[in-house]
């Protein structure tokens, strides 16, 4: 017996296994970052003093990084749409952009980190910086995960398109859902850490 509904949707649930799986995974990710954001709130309301983000963080750089990530979300959608339209060459281009944009994001993030280190603004400096480092680093790990997965679907994994087209489309869709989630986390992180 083969495992059913790996590609096609099950009639009564309306989902295939991959899509249900990735949504459940994202639900747990919501709880992970939810736990961290709750910790942030509790620590902040319990703190005697809490710095404005701008005292330590560079808002223009953060804004640029936000735009970069949103752009990569857009290219991800375009990549998936191109696949659905059967335009593999376009898919490759958009997917490449989806891989390279977050690399740029990480480079800028790295510069920010380097700046912090050179000013001795390490996690041990204050609870604000501690939560900044922890949450952005955890988010950064998620970004790296996304780059690896999307890179695989851009490169060696894309051969599957010629063999099992529908399965490949499902996989890219799942990777896309994850990628949008990672971007969404940043969209929360940016105002919480930089602006508030």
């Amino acid at each position, binding site marked *: 017996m083969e495992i059913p509904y790996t590609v096609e949707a099950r009639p009564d649930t309306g989902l295939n296994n991959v899509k249900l799986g990735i949504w*459940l995974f994202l639900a747990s990710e919501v709880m992970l970052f939810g736990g961290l954001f709750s910790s942030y709130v509790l620590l902040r309301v319990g703190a005697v003093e809490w710095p404005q983000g701008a005292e330590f963080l560079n808002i223009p750089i953060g804004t640029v990084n936000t735009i970069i990530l949103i752009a990569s979300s857009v290219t991800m959608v375009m990549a998936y749409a191109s696949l659905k339209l059967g335009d593999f060459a376009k898919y490759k281009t958009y997917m490449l952009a989806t891989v390279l944009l977050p690399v740029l994001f990480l480079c800028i993030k790295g510069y920010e980190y380097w700046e912090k280190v050179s000013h001795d603004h*390490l996690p041990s400096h204050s609870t604000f910086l501690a939560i900044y480092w922890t949450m952005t680093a955890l988010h950064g790990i998620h970004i790296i995960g996304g780059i690896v997965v999307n890179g695989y679907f851009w490169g060696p994994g894309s051969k599957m398109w010629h063999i099992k087209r529908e399965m490949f489309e499902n996989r890219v869709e799942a990777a896309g859902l994850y990628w949008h989630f990672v971007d969404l986390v940043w969209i929360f992180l940016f105002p919480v850490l930089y602006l508030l």
Partner: protein
Amino acid sequence: MDNVTTAEGIAHAEHAGHDEHELSFLQAYVFSQDHKVIGIQYAITALLFLLFGFTLMMLMRWNLAFPGRPIPVIGNFLGMANAPGGIMLPEFYNQLGAMHGTIMVFLGVVPLAVGGFGNYVLPLQIGAPDMAFPRLNMASYWSFFLGGIVMIASFFVPGGAANSGWTSYAPLSVIATDGQTWWLIGMIFLITSSLLGSVNFIVTTLQLRAPGMSFMRLPFFVWAQLVTSFLLLLAFPPLEAAGVLQLMDRVADTSFFMPSGLVTGDGPLEISGGGSPLLWQHLFWFLAHPEVYVLILPALGIVGEIVANNTRKPLWGYRVLVASVIFLGFMSFIVWAHHMFLTGMGTTISTFFQTTTMIISIPSVVILSAMFLSLYGGSIRYTVPMLFALAFLPMFGIGGLTGLPLGLTAPDIHLHDTYYVIGHFHYVVAPGTIFALFGGIYYWFPKATGRLMNDMLGRIHFWGSIIAINCVFMPMFVTGLAGMNRRLYDGGMQYAHLQGVLEWNQFMSYGAWALGFFQIFFIFNFFWSIRHGKKVDDNPWQSTTLEWQAPSPPPHGNFTTPPEVHRGPYEYSVPGASSDFSMQGQAPGAEPAKV
């Protein structure tokens, strides 16, 4: 087709050999992606961890019974740093305590109940060929295995294993020895494992049900596993977050859980301060209370299966049971702070959590009552699995009812952190859950091996264990009510108010060692029966659920013909039917399979 499903499925059992391509030994038994092999890997690894965790406790019980006396024989092997001259140091006792809790919960009971039974039985019961994501399933096991290795290895780092309790309360855990860092890293592996597992279980249950297996035809065990998986999926990540924060506190000198102005024996701590030790407790118990239901729900599922099978009548109130389990799952997310009544978090919050705690006891009592009512009027077969299931009911009852005073803020002031608490939750987990798991092993052993476990050895194991385990835990209520603190390494001999109850310490220790002795019968029986147990057919218990329709042991892909479901899970003694059980895959009007 309908008729063929059961009749031929069972007839074909003998030539279970499947025309799959040959797998190498490594692929078939080590890095297997078959849910049955992974289930057995989980089960055996978890049983070993249970034994190990229990051994730690037997060592601790020596020091509680005979404080300051050298441990005979074993004491010589514990090392100078832990037990000079065989006498256990308090620091080592703390390590054993913390690791006993951690190992029993995260490496023993949950992997056995969910990873072991869930993996092996759930796909079979819903008529699926395997789990939805076999490769993730394998990754889940190996992540669990690595987490276990890290935990065990932490005993050998300088300063020994984690020693701040299984709850790892900050700030103590932040300033503790290196073992705590290993504990956190180990937990991250275990959390990853349970995340992969729970996604897999939910997708499998929702997506891979055989044709005709509607939600209201799912065996109760499947429902219990499904709710358990949701708890694991949503409750574990906050602990992962907390673990990361504590790791930062320990490694990067942050102060998430460290308040300002903290002074240790070495003087004031050089930290930025401003953190909240209570935050750790909130994050920890947000996981760890649902975790309690992760421990108990699969056990309830197993007991449900065994009770229905051995009373030869349907489970009483199947729909109520399902509704209760789901409600229990929801409620378990909003009771966590009843572990924290004495932390000074405020009476308003305490009152809220006291109320939710009282509410969550309702579905628990409903489930237990339904199980008891299921017994009424049944012609009970006292098989070994049934003995364990029957023992589970009152034992879990004691555990649950003794929990009520703990859930009320006023009596908790007296009872908090005493042996009463230890007695309470051990009644839930040890003669409760672990007995149910033993019952499950005796019950499904013939499915996994095609052989029964020895009946006489099973009965010795049962009666010995039930008596011994009550000798261990019942006196804890007495010593706890007398005010014995749960963390005293010498059993409280320095306290005047405990002098009257100290004698119970030795009694409990003899109970624990007797319990250990009776497990030998189980261990021997388990391995002996794999080769020498009585050979039986595919459905030795005359059960109704789908797993008994597959050959024993089920081949790769599980079923010889794709199963189809025609009825509910517990159609025992249906009036007018030709046998006293109607299997789920048996078409209406079809003759039951000969067994």
